């Protein structure tokens, strides 16, 4: 795909309310590459929470409300592996047989996870202006398995000269977030995030970055509760802070 003039930005509900700085950083990165970034003000949520809980009618109603926001034939960039995965993989399932199926399919086909878009489409070049730092990368399960884009975050960070990446034990293992899983199976989720935070802390990294704010809310929240551990940051914010002039 050649570099587009404009893209839509689908921020996701979690980024909108909890991690707006991460969302904004993603938009700044895109804008710096000469892409016009459109933020449709009527966007809300991809429908994933209800879909994963089995409430498909409700998921469909919310997903449907997004269709009008992304009508033009330009890429939709999402700063989240799991919401990107929801749109690309599960919207076709969710909208199957619905009158607006074609619209949903069209959007799904031009949806990209942010790091995927930066690497594959924009072929972004990064110049590290930050202090030396040692980090660990948590690859979100959706980015890894649903979208197959887990390596994009690695290749972006690989361009930063002052960043050393440390690898935690059992890196591909889920952090235990899983959306409503963290509430419905709170104790299993707690045991999982304990293992994940232990592994991350043991690397000695001072920052943990990820493509997904769900994972970050889980991992970061656990570090905070435990009272020690690396800082957590969305990859977009990490990249933007280290490369903005």
């Amino acid at each position, binding site marked *: 795909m050649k570099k587009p003039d404009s893209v839509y930005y689908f921020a996701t509900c979690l980024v909108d309310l909890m991690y707006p700085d991460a969302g904004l950083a993603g938009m700044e990165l895109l804008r710096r590459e000469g892409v016009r970034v459109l*933020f449709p003000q009527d966007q809300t949520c991809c429908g994933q929470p209800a879909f994963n809980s089995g409430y498909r009618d409700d998921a469909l109603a*919310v997903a449907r409300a997004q269709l009008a926001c992304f009508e033009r034939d330009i890429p939709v960039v999402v700063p989240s592996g799991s919401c990107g995965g929801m749109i690309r993989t599960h919207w076709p399932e969710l909208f199957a047989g619905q009158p607006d199926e074609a619209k949903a399919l069209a959007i799904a086909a031009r949806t990209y996870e942010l790091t995927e878009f930066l690497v594959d489409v924009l072929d972004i070049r990064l110049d590290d202006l930050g202090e030396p730092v040692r980090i660990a990368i948590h690859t979100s399960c959706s980015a890894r*398995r649903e979208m197959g884009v887990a390596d994009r975050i690695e290749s972006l960070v690989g361009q930063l000269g002052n960043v050393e990446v440390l690898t935690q034990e059992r890196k591909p293992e*889920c952090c235990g977030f*899983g959306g409503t899983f963290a509430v419905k199976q709170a104790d299993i989720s707690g045991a999982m995030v304990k293992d994940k935070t232990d592994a991350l802390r043991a690397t000695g990294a001072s920052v943990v970055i990820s493509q997904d704010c769900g994972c970050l809310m889980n991992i970061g929240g656990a570090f905070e*509760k435990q009272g020690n551990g690396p800082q957590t940051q969305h990859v977009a914010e990490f990249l933007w802070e280290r490369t903005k002039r």
Partner: protein
Amino acid sequence: MSTTSSSTSQDQSRAFHARIDDALHNDQMRTNFRRALTGIMAHRAKQFPDDAQLQALRDQARAVRANSLVRQPELLEQLERKLTENGIQVHWAENPQQANSIIRGILQAAGAKTVVKGKSMVSEETELNHDLEQHGIEVIESDLGEYIIQLAEEPPSHIVAPAIHKNRRDVAELFKRFHPEIPYTEDINELTNSAREILRHRFATADAGISGVNFAVAETGTLCLVENEGNGRLSTTAPRIHIAITGIEKVVEKLADVPPLLEILTKSATGQPITTYFNMISRPRQPGELDGPEAVHLVLLDNGRSRIRVDAELLDTLRCIRCGACINHCPVYVQLGGHAYGTVYPGPIGLALEPQRIGLDKVGTLTSACTMCGACGEVCPVRIPLPKLINRLRAEAVDGHPGQAGLPGHGSLRKSTEATTWKLWRLLYSRPGLYRLFAASATRLRALTPSKLGGWTRYRSTPKPAPRSLRELAKKEGFGND
């Protein structure tokens, strides 16, 4: 929704959470699982150094299994015909009770009092051991893992490694208790040898042998049995009667289908290029032959499989070749171990299969024990889309359209409080104006965010909305609407 189903659904949820609680507090067991599974995953990975080859083999295995399922009715007829020609007697069982009574009948007619058994998960489905023992027939499990849990009077915690929850000290203790004549040791090889000695005597004296089946080949009427200890071979050849039991979905079309399945099964299950033993059983002892059973029986169990097969999506569940890879890679299973699930099949395949087999009203809550991380689907040798199936079952369990045909217990886990919560969520997130108002107040009133959010804050700090939502920041920073 009837009151009975709602109380059943509450009961199953409460019981499941109690088992989860027990499991999470059993540190020793969790350590055992973590250690064992880390090892198995590494072994498996070593067998597949070339990803392209692995993916091609998965495609092939998937196609073989999918084709067998499509043609299942005719293949089963052919299988029965061929087996009968070969002198193997075929029995059909719709449910566990029928299967058990068929097997019991065969044993009683032959005056059999003792049985040695090879590993069979289908016999766990029917609780065969219990049934036989109730009727005065002694059953000895001959697979080492099965033997250990039989001594401990526990169900298997894993479909391939039934005693995986035990470490060597647990096993040594069991042997000390049940075989005081053997000197105490924690050495795995010595323990294995002792078990061999004990079991060898049993093989020689048992009246009948019972085994499972990995693949039943329709073309030739051959029963294939994959194993490592030689106990399968002895159970199926030493006693005068051999009874095999399996699910009807295990049929495959032809012998040529077996090699790709066998290769991906052993590599995925235990990380072995091939198991130590691979048995192909095609007939009883013939006149003039010196060994082998005089009679061979095959019991084909349905137990819900035909019902699953007619659903175009759920059908995929039946491709399973019971390798256990999904279980080994499940980040929830490694925390809980197998017993917490409370079903015959634990882990991802259990989440997908058991509610279909037993009913959503009975075990549908299992589907909550999944983060949708996708690790299972990524390793499944026959590409069963496990997360998709689990998601589908979640939807069926809470579906509010009772008129729709579906699985047993369809809609039984729908709770009005939860349904209402999602209705409110839907209202808020499908009306941009309303949502904007909500976002504006949530950010401005962030100080009022409740500091305790159920189970979430037991392990994490409270998430707080940012001072301004992204939609406000985007506007301010000049990112246009369109």
